[in-house]
């Protein structure tokens, strides 16, 4: 459903993505890891058009993202995104955060949108806080609301951009538990993270990136037990020592 073919991206002279070839299938949970500056977040952000590519083709749900006549909004309706810093709307309550796009973009009936939102908030264990504002919630709670907000659009894939990197350690597990639940329910997920526990438990494959390239793309457990590339070995060693 998502296919990168020879994708390149530059920031001025800086070659951020080098000849990326990747494909993601429906129902798959792919975990993208790599040192900072490796291009993993950039790659992820290309999928919903937050970053433009310079050449190659990127197909999302059979639509060429780079074509001039492509309406990015119609793609984004089907591609949810969860950010490192949650990016909840601070001027809206939890329930309003979740229902805003379904009501305004999908033109759902507000009552129906509210019911769906409550179901999703229950799923992420945040229903009891539905009338709170983001500033009254912990990071982990905000991130769970952000996941519900992404799910409310009923996307075909959910992108996670380091969803636990900005969280206090004690709230990380609550977020990971929700993500694992989604993975087991068959949600298509592409997750940029350093959480190797999550990768091993529910990841179908691990994509290791470095210096703008995909270095390894293999089964999660295989990769974890026996990374081929020396950079992957070194990186894995570092993050495991920290954990």
């Amino acid at each position, binding site marked *: 459903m998502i296919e990168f073919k020879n994708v390149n991206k530059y920031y001025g002279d800086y070659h951020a993505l080098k000849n990326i070839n990747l494909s993601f299938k429906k129902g798959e949970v792919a975990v993208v890891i790599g040192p900072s500056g490796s291009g993993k977040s950039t790659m992820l952000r290309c999928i*919903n*058009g*937050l970053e433009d590519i310079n050449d190659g083709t990127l197909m999302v749900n059979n639509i060429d993202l780079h074509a001039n006549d492509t309406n*990015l*909004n*119609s793609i*984004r*309706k089907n*591609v*949810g*995104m969860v*950010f490192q*810093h949650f*990016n*909840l*709307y*601070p*001027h809206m309550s939890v329930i309003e955060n979740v229902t*805003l*796009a379904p009501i*305004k*973009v*999908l033109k759902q009936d507000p009552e129906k949108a509210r019911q769906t939102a409550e179901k999703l908030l229950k799923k992420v264990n945040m229903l009891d806080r539905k009338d709170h*504002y*983001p*500033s009254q919630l912990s990071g982990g709670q905000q991130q769970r609301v952000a996941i519900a*907000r*992404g799910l409310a*659009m009923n996307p075909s894939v959910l992108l996670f951009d380091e969803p636990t990197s900005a969280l206090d350690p004690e709230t990380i597990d609550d977020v990971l538990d929700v993500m694992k639940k989604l993975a087991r329910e068959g949600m298509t997920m592409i997750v940029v993270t350093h959480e190797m526990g999550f990768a091993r438990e529910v990841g179908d494959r691990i994509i290791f990136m470095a210096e703008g390239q995909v270095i390894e793309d293999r089964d999660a457990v295989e990769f974890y037990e026996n990374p081929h590339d020396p950079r992957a070995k070194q990186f894995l060693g570092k993050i495991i020592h920290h954990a």
Partner: protein
Amino acid sequence: MIELLSTYGGMLLRGFVNTLIASVIALFFSMIIGTLVGILQVSKNKFAKGLANAYVQLFLNIPLLVIVLFFYVVFPMYVANINGYTAGIIGLTIYTSAFIAETVRAGIQGVPAGQMEAGLSTGFTYWETMRYIILPQAIKIVIPPLGNQFINLVKNSSVFAMVAGLDLMYYGDLIASETFNTFGTYTMVALFYLVITLPLTHFMQYAERRLAAKD
């Protein structure tokens, strides 16, 4: 002072009402123009952005009096005859709109970039994201500096006096030169300005508290 009021109170009141009306009109239109220009200043369209920036730079950096005189003296020679009061309102509107545009631009840029990304990634267009997500947050940032602009607008309307603008300052000058009671006259004029600006200050502070309380 009592004597001054009994003889010239009507004139002062007329000036006060004219200043109040001119301020309300200029405030209304400078808010509309300033908000639009401010939004265009951060738009992705290079042409619109360039035009908006040029507008702001031009009117931010010319004295208000020059703009008002332009409309009072030059404009009637080539376009249409307008009186000092109208020329004053037009000049004040344009001048203030440049400051409001800068305030609005700073307010929009004060909203974290992630908010735009969050809006876009749920399928909103750029303009929808502006409307539902960015602007409601920018308003809170903008209210305090905007209040200062409103106060400045009321005080700046006193340049009307230079173009026979029939405002509070104009009548004040008139009365002062007739009575030679400069102390009494300008004290009265100052008090009349305070009648407009003090409630305005308090209203803006109230609006700030109300908006802040919401989240």
